[in-house]
C-alpha cells in the first residue's frame, strides 16, 4: 500500500483509523481512477469515528459524500443517524461497501422517506 500514489494523500487519516485503512484505500482509488470523480477530498468524522470522501460526480456535476465500510461491519440506524448528525447540511450519502475480494458496491442512503426517481 505505501508504494501506491494515493498512499501519501490518505496516510494522515488512515493512521488515525487503521481498521478502516483497507476499505478507504479501495474506495478512494475506485472513485478517483475508475469512477473519475473530481475534486476528491478525504474528511474525518471524529464523533462517529469514520472517514468519508467528498467529491463531484462526473455525470451530474453534483457534490456527494461517500462513506466506505466493510461487508463484515455491523451498522445500525442509530449509527446512520449519528453520521447524518455530524454531516449537518447533508440529506443523503453513498455507502460504499467493500468486500474481501476488493469488490465495491455503492448504495444511496437518504435520511427520511425519499421517493425513488421514476
Amino acid at each position: 500500500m505505501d508504494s501506491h500514489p494515493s498512499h501519501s494523500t490518505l496516510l494522515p487519516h488512515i493512521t488515525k483509523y487503521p481498521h478502516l485503512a483497507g476499505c478507504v484505500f479501495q474506495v478512494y482509488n475506485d472513485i478517483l481512477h475508475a469512477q473519475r470523480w473530481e475534486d476528491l477530498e478525504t474528511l474525518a468524522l471524529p464523533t462517529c469515528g469514520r472517514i468519508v470522501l467528498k467529491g463531484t460526480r462526473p455525470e451530474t456535476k453534483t457534490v456527494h459524500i461517500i462513506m466506505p465500510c466493510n461487508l463484515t461491519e455491523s451498522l445500525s440506524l442509530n449509527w446512520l443517524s449519528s453520521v447524518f448528525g455530524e454531516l449537518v447540511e447533508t440529506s443523503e450519502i453513498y455507502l460504499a461497501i467493500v468486500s474481501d475480494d476488493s469488490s465495491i458496491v455503492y448504495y444511496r442512503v437518504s435520511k427520511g422517506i425519499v421517493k425513488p426517481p421514476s
Partner: protein
Amino acid sequence: MCFSDAAELRSKHRICGTLSGTLPHLTQQNFFLGLPLLLMPEEVVLLVENEVAVLVDDTTSVGEPSSAELAEWDEVRKQQVSKEIALWHERDSARAALEITTGKGKGRLSEEAVQKRKERQERKAREVPRELTLDGESVPKEIALDAQAETHSQPNYTVHIPSTSLSHAWYRPSIYEDLHSASHAGLWTYPRTPEEVASCRVFRDLWEKGHFLGSGLKFGGDFLVYPGDPLRYHSHFVASVLTFPTSPIRPMEVVAHGRLGTATKKAHLLCSWDGGKQEVTYFSIEWAGFG
C-alpha cells in the same frame, strides 16, 4: 362482514387487507377473489385503537338455539323453499305456454312430443324397477317408498348456507372494544414482543402519513408502501422494520434490499421505532447507479 364493510375500510380508512375467498366453481385461481377479507395484525391493532372496529370472540358468540328459535328458523327456510318451487312452476308453465303458441323453437318440443314424454314418464312410474343379480337373473329392485314417489319430476331448489352467523337469533356476539380487554381475555394478544410493538408503531406512522400499506412478503420486506389505493398505484417503497434504533444491520442486507428495490423501481425503507423518543426513524436505500 359484508362487502360494503370491506369497501368502507378501504375508501374511508385506507385499510385494504387481503381478499382470500375464491370461486366455488373455479377454486384453483387467485385472480378473482372475494370475501373473507384477511387483515394483518398491524391493521387490526390500528382499527381497534382508532375505534373503527371491535374484536368479536366468535367461539363464544354462538349459543344453543331454543326450540322456539329453531322452529322459526325451520319455518323461514321452508317458506324460502316453497317460494322458490312456486317460482319455478310459474316459469315452467310460462315456458310451456310459449312453446305451444310459437311451435317448434330451438330444442323445444312440440305439443305432441310433450304429450308423448308425459305418457312415457307415467309408464315408467307404473313399472317395477328391476336389477340384475350376481347370477344374471333379473329381479325386482327394492326401492324405498319415498324414492318411488319422487321419480315424478320435482324441481330442484337451492339450499342457502349463510356465510355469517349474524342472521341467527341465537348469535349473541362477545365484543371487545379495546386491545387491553381483549388481551386480558386471552382473545387477542398482539403486539406483545418488542418486534411486534415496533412493527405496529411503524405501520401506524406510515399510515398516519397518508400511505396505503400492504404485506411486503412478495418483495422481501415487512410492508409495501403505496402513495394511493393499490388498485391504482404501484408501491414506491418496501419497508423493513428494525426492532430498535440500535438493532444491527449487516451491509449485506443493505445490498440485498437496495438491489431488489431498484430492480422493481422501488426504494427500500429501513424503519425503526425509538421507544424513548416515541418516534419512527426512516432511511431510504437505493442502488447508487454506478460502481
